């Protein structure tokens, strides 16, 4: 059954797969993770704040995003981002945005909801006494957050945040539905052009498998290391 396998098609398309496709996937993963953690942390602070409206708005956003499938969110933003661009720049018609920017906005705002829940758990894991001690020392809200709470919350949650990043890395393959050329998009284009579905899809699966497996093992080792220090 593997007799008429064409391994050569993989070799021939390696530069395209990795220099075009994988670069897009990795860039999208890293930038969406960074943006998602920043916005997610702000959302978590908003959810935990005692400003009445703010916590409800943040909670509603998080629950809304978390009840929608990622594919639907990708479609939403794919059509919405041009209008958001028009609104921000005040242009007369919806703005054409590139595939990368559209995907980046989508994943950042989508993952922010999940990172929010992680950071919320992280902030809540810090004993209340520390907040009170910071206040007693005369620190304001932002100083206490930046100097005392968030560094610890972040550190406690590093393994969970990294695991979420691995999930995000796998989820980026879904940009396929808006015909963006990420790693899987590139593999699928070659597969269809050359009629080599079996080779290309198996190869793509193997690459995702190796990267995700290695990353999750590394996270597990890191988790043990952090656990000993603490």
């Amino acid at each position: 059954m593997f007799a008429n396998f064409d391994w050569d098609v993989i070799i021939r398309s390696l530069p395209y797969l990795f220099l075009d496709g994988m670069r897009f996937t990795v860039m999208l993963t890293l930038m969406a993770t960074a943006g998602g953690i920043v916005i997610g942390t702000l959302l978590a602070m908003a959810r935990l704040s005692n400003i009445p409206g703010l916590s409800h708005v943040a909670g509603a956003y998080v629950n809304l995003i978390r009840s929608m499938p990622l594919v639907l969110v990708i479609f939403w933003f794919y059509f919405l981002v041009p209008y958001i661009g028009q609104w921000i720049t005040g242009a007369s018609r919806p703005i054409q945005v590139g595939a990368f920017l559209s995907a980046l906005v989508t994943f950042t705002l989508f993952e922010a909801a999940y990172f929010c829940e992680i950071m919320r758990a992280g902030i809540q894991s810090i004993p209340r006494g520390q907040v009170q001690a910071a206040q007693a020392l005369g620190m304001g809200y932002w100083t206490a957050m930046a100097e005392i709470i968030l560094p610890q919350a972040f550190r406690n949650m590093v393994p969970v945040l990294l695991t979420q990043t691995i999930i995000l890395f796998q989820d980026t393959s879904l940009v396929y539905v808006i015909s963006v050329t990420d790693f899987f998009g590139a593999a699928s284009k070659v597969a269809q052009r050359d009629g080599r579905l079996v080779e290309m899809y198996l190869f793509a699966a193997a690459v995702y498998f190796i990267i995700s497996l290695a990353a999750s093992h590394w996270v597990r080792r890191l988790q043990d290391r952090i656990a000993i220090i603490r």
Partner: protein
Amino acid sequence: MSYKWNWGIFFQISPDGTHTYLQLLLFGAGWTIATALLAWAIALSAGAIVGVIRTSPIPWLVRLGNAYVELFRNIPLLVQMFLWYFVLPELMPQTIGDWLKQSSNASFYNAVICLGLYTSARVAEQVKAGILSLRSGQRMAGLAMGLTLPQTYRYVLLPMAFRIILPPLSSEFLNIIKNSSVALTIGLIELTAAARSMSEFSFQVFEAFTGATLIYIIINIVVVAGMRWLERRVAVPGFISLGQPAAAH
């Protein structure tokens, strides 16, 4: 904004000539629910078996279970869908492969199997965690009373473990409903796909996606309420405190 809203679009007849766009979305929701329920049956049974063998005292079974979980967890769901739908029939003997490709509803069955096995790896993680969270004395007590190992699992460990992991299992069930939307890539017209085709035919993009979003929210609310009821129903008094708020929902 140059976008023209038209909420009446839901009651207009769609290009199929007989049904309204709203009915189209509801058919999609039906496929979403059918896919999720059947896949959940696979996920729960396969996940329970794999979770149990990962806590068994037989090393090669543990390794087999671990390999199973790593395999299904480290490949994106979209890629797994394509492997089942496009690659598997090619690797089969000619006759079976052709039969797989030509059977009607092939994308539905593929989606169910793929989603079921993908989720079973996650369920297996939860089942394992649930069993390990029980005190080792429970297993020893069961064995000391003369129960065989399978009986200990059946009557002592699993009834408690499943109760403990009910909250994470319900969020896995919510995930399977959401993940069923990935099946649109292999041609299943579930809710998200129905909304997309509605947006393409009617050009009322945002109404279509709002409709789908609302239906997803309603499904979510019903599932969460059902799971809360089930949790209260099966609670063992004095064993698992129900009052504590769930960290994630």
